[in-house]
């Protein structure tokens, strides 16, 4: 039971522990943004994970072996030097033999020259090794992320993903460049030193090893805290980065709404938290080195204490003691290096944990192994009792069934949020239905190879995305082998060449990030051309002309009639001028098909569609809105 006084005046010991253990207090800042955080991983050192990490060395085994060999030559030189020193002192200096001294000095020089050559080679080899492994890991990670389906991306800010591919992979750089090689050579060195010491004077050797268990016991105490500390640091940093990424991409909104000051406050909170987490970790991390040194000093003390008795009893020469001290010094060097290595290993493990978490993520949408290619399709599409929910218990589509004949033009209409885009998401297999199936030409979507399906369908997404690069590059994205002429023809057919040619560099004008240097409608036009260029069997347009003016839209429609003769198309639109030409109109309401038919038949039916259309005429009633009206 702690009394009041001891509460008020904690002992020194307690104060120190409190300082070391102080977990950052949650700050009272309002959480303005929410970024999914990785949960704290408090598992002991994970050997399986390390082994998995090491498999990345696989193809570079030869390189790794060469690097290790060269490094070992360098360390072996370090091992030999005290021996030469011992001989020099014993025989050359002790024996007053100038000739021997000269020879030993030359040998000594030779070890350094060899070490010099080895060091240069080591640097080149280890960097090549480390960078190759990193490049491979990065390739693997990015390639894997590319295969993941949209549920993965829906739930993560881009900044989080970005950080894994760059920062987390780079954090492994140390480990792969020097870590593994150093580990091997240091272990080799350590064993070598132990052997040499044992041969020289086994009793003295054993005495100087006494402190090793001490080191092990001490360091295990500290290690766990260091590991958890680094994990926390990484988490904090990833939060900072996620926010930065979003702050940059949303900058225009921030400035329009003069939110700069508050964002700055938010940022300083997370920035500050990172600082404090780091410093907390440092408290433990910083102890490691001094602890190793202390045990080293104890070792030297023992050599002297015990060595002097040996010298007294004439069991050892003074030169031997001198050599031993050199060896003990050498001996602690690899140990403290291994300690440092362990530290960077812990940091690396924190990063690799996060990398593997991504690599272990399985795509929700994937074709079964060995799925057959979808042969060229005619474009017959069937929805059989399809239901879908993005998140459990909120159905976006509810038991939707329909059949589309090859070459039919279908318009999807309905209130916003009715499920039109969802139909399109399922059709292009961005998601799989929760119930029911979708057939294309009689093939179940889930049974065929995904790329062969998507290649035959083109979607113009509701949200336009252009890559930074030129207009030409962006259009060619639709078909990589399209010639310049084909690209220009496609743009011409859609009526996009007018504005393109007015640009300073025409088709070679850069569009900026996300197409920011173009008007919204121009971006949409380009993504339209891009989709057409892909020459799809099925064209899907999700409000693809919502930001395009009516005249251009008319041009597009005439072009489509020509270009898409005989192909199936789905069009989501709110503008009557776009909808009314469709062969068939499906009206969606709360995830279900409410009505289906031609424009005229639906108008006659006088249901949801008729009221949607009539809304247009309601705008014509009444006068201007402003005060002058």
């Amino acid at each position, binding site marked *: 039971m702690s009394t009041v006084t001891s509460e008020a005046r904690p002992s020194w010991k307690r104060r120190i522990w409190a300082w070391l253990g102080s977990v950052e207090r949650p700050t009272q800042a309002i959480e*303005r943004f*929410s970024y999914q955080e990785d949960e704290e991983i408090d598992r002991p050192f994970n050997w399986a994970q390390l082994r998995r990490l090491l498999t990345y060395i696989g193809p570079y085994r030869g390189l790794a072996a060469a690097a290790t060999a060269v490094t070992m030559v360098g360390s072996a030189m370090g091992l030999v030097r005290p021996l030469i020193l011992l001989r020099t002192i014993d025989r*050359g*200096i002790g024996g007053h*033999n100038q000739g021997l001294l000269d020879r030993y000095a030359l040998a*000594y*020089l030779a070890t*350094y020259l060899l*070490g010099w050559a080895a060091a240069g080679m080591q*640097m*080149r080899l280890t*960097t*090549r090794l480390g960078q*190759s492994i990193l490049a491979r890991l990065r*390739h693997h990670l*990015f*390639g894997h*992320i590319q295969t993941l389906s949209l549920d993965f991306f829906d739930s993560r800010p881009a900044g989080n993903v*970005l950080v894994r591919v760059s920062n987390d992979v*780079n954090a492994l750089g140390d480990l792969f460049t020097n870590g593994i090689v150093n580990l091997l050579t240091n272990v080799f060195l350590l064993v070598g030193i132990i052997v040499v010491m044992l041969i020289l004077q086994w009793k003295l050797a054993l005495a100087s090893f006494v402190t090793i268990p001490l080191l092990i016991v001490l360091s295990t105490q500290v290690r766990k805290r260091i590991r958890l500390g680094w994990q926390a640091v990484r988490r904090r940093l990833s939060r*900072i980065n*996620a926010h*930065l990424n979003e702050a*940059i*991409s949303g*900058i225009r*909104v*921030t400035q*329009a709404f003069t*939110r700069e000051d508050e964002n700055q406050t938010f*940022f300083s909170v997370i920035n500050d938290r990172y*600082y404090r987490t780091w410093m907390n970790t*440092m408290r433990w991390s*910083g102890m490691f080195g*001094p602890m190793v040194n*202390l045990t080293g000093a*104890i070792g030297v*003390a023992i050599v*002297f*204490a015990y060595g002097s008795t040996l010298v*007294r009893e004439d069991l050892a020469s003074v030169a031997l*003691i001198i050599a031993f001290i050199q060896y003990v010094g050498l001996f602690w060097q690899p140990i403290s290096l291994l300690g440092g290595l362990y530290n960077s290993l812990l940091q690396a493990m924190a990063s690799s944990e996060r990398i593997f978490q991504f690599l272990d993520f399985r795509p929700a949408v994937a074709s079964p192994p060995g799925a057959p290619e979808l042969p060229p399709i005619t474009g017959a599409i069937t929805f059989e009792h399809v239901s879908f929910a993005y998140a459990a218990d909120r159905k976006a589509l509810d038991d939707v069934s329909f059949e589309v004949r090859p070459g039919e033009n279908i318009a999807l209409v309905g*209130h916003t949020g009715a499920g039109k*885009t969802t139909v399109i998401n399922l059709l292009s297999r961005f998601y799989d239905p929760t119930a029911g199936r979708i057939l294309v030409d009689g093939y179940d979507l889930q049974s065929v190879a995904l790329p062969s399906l*998507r290649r035959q369908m083109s*979607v113009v997404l509701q949200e336009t995305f252009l890559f930074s690069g030129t207009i030409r590059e962006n259009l060619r994205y639709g078909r990589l082998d399209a010639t310049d002429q084909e690209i220009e023809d496609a743009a011409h057919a859609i009526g996009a060449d007018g504005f393109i040619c007015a640009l*300073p560099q025409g088709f070679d004008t850069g569009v900026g*990030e*996300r197409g*920011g240097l173009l008007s919204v409608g121009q971006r949409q*036009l380009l993504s339209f051309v891009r989709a057409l260029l892909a020459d799809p069997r099925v064209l899907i347009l999700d*409000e693809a002309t919502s*930001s395009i003016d*009516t*005249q*251009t839209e*008319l041009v597009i429609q005439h072009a489509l009639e020509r270009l898409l003769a005989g192909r199936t198309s789905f069009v989501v639109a709110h503008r009557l*001028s776009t909808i009314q030409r469709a062969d068939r109109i499906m009206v969606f309401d709360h995830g279900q098909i409410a009505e289906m038919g031609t*424009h005229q038949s639906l108008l006659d039916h006088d249901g949801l569609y008729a009221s949607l259309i009539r809304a247009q005429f309601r705008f014509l009633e009444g006068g201007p809105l*402003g005060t002058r009206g």
Partner: protein
Amino acid sequence: MWVFRQLRPYYVPYLRTLTVALTLLGLFTAMTLLTPYITRALINSVLENHHWSELWPLVLALPLLSLTSGVVNFAQQYLNQDFSQKCTLRLRAALYARLQAHGFDYYDHEHTGNLMQRVTGDVEAWRTFWTQGMGEAATFTFNIVLGLVVMVTLNGRLTLFTVLLLPFLTISVMRLDRAMRPAYSRIRQSMSDLQTVVQENITGVRTVKSFAREDYALRVFETRNLAYMQYNVEAAILQSRYIPLIQLIGNLGAVMLLWYGGMEVIHGRMSLGTMVAFFGLLGYLTGPIQQLGFLVNLFAQAFASGQRLIEILETPDIVTNRPGAKELSPLEAKGDVRFEHVSFHYTESSDRLALSDVCLHAKPGMVVGLLGRTGAGKSTLVNLIPRFYDVQQGQVLVDGRDVRDWTLESLRRQIGIVPGDTFLFSASIFENISYGRHDAKLDDVRRAASLAQADGFIMELPDQYETTVGERGLGLSGGQRQRIALARAILYDPSILILDDATSSVDLETEYEIQTALERVMQGRTTFIIGHRISSLRRADEILVLDGGRIVDRGRHEDLVRRDGLYRDVFQLQFQGARG
């Protein structure tokens, strides 16, 4: 060095911590230098001359010394980390502030991926320099100075030998530094390029997938990935030329010591103990010299990264507060907007005008509609009102005063804009709607959402207003996103409201409801509505028809449908089928 001069504000305030840390480091170095003295005494007097009684005090001194120096070392390290972390804290905050302040024109030409790499990777390189670099540099200096002092006291002539090597060292180090700087610039740049590819392929993942271009993306990625690797390897090759050489030069000292020192001992001019102590000391000299190459690397990296950070910090903003700019007080703002012969172009050259000679006057409370072909300049026109860009000719006036004579913040505070491409943050819907109004209560937010016809669907969501929407509003339909952006502008309570094609993804019925609701909102506010649908513009007090950056026609709906022109064409196209 100019990089370090420019970045002074980000480390000078903390130099006191660094000074304490470095002082402690000096103390630590001095303490470790005592060890050779003890060792010498142990060898000379105890082992050689058999003064056994001195053994224990000397032996115990060793761990004791290590313990005290360990404590000093810990404190030194801790303070050093504290220093460098504080520097980065400040630097990151400054970068963030600059990034928030940079105008639209800056972001038109900078890549998110590139900027991200700077605020993460480059900041990290800068920090590493201060953490490890300063420590190493100080250790180096202390060791050399103290080591030399001790050596001179032990044996002057022997010291001379070691000093001879220093010029060679200096030359190699300078060469290394010169070679490494451009190498690190290349590495940094290629990392940025890599980052940009990743970033784009993640944000555009739907596009990548819909064209089944995963393989292509991976190929593009791979070329940059390999370039980055290649630059790293090249840097290593450069390093491998100099760093081992620097180490070798340091080590030659040891060889000379052995040879010359050995002769001195043979001739009885020096004791064996002194020579061994010298060897110990030489370690203190050559150890840091071995690190010298590494130190140079850190420096070169910091230089390359610092340069890239300065680019963010020092790029001037074009759109800033003019001296003497006045505050536009919310109480007095009326929302009167005038364009007087405004011409504007985005690029340097003025031969591609985005707007030319635009005149308009929107009186307080008026609704102005804008119609025009894609790329006609509608968004450009409205973007000039909140000064997202500044005009090159003519002037834009708000409440009778040039917008450049209002302070930027107070001006923007009066303008609510719903941009053509919706951006939502990874935050709750509540946060997103109250983005410009941090003091808003749930009731206010709900009221704004109701006016934007968004309350209905939000209340159907599992967590209602607390639902987190993903980056860019994933998890909502296009129309739902637009309505949240609309609610955000309504809640902002501006005197000028700009709707840039804000209902393009909303069905006609909902749009009608929004418009009816907006009637109340628009009372007493000047409103600009950009739209392609006649329905959106129909009830404006004045409709401006833009073509190629010029106003080609203007009037009310009733007037314009009667005149031959763009407006009537559009009207007929949109309404002809429906009557049948």
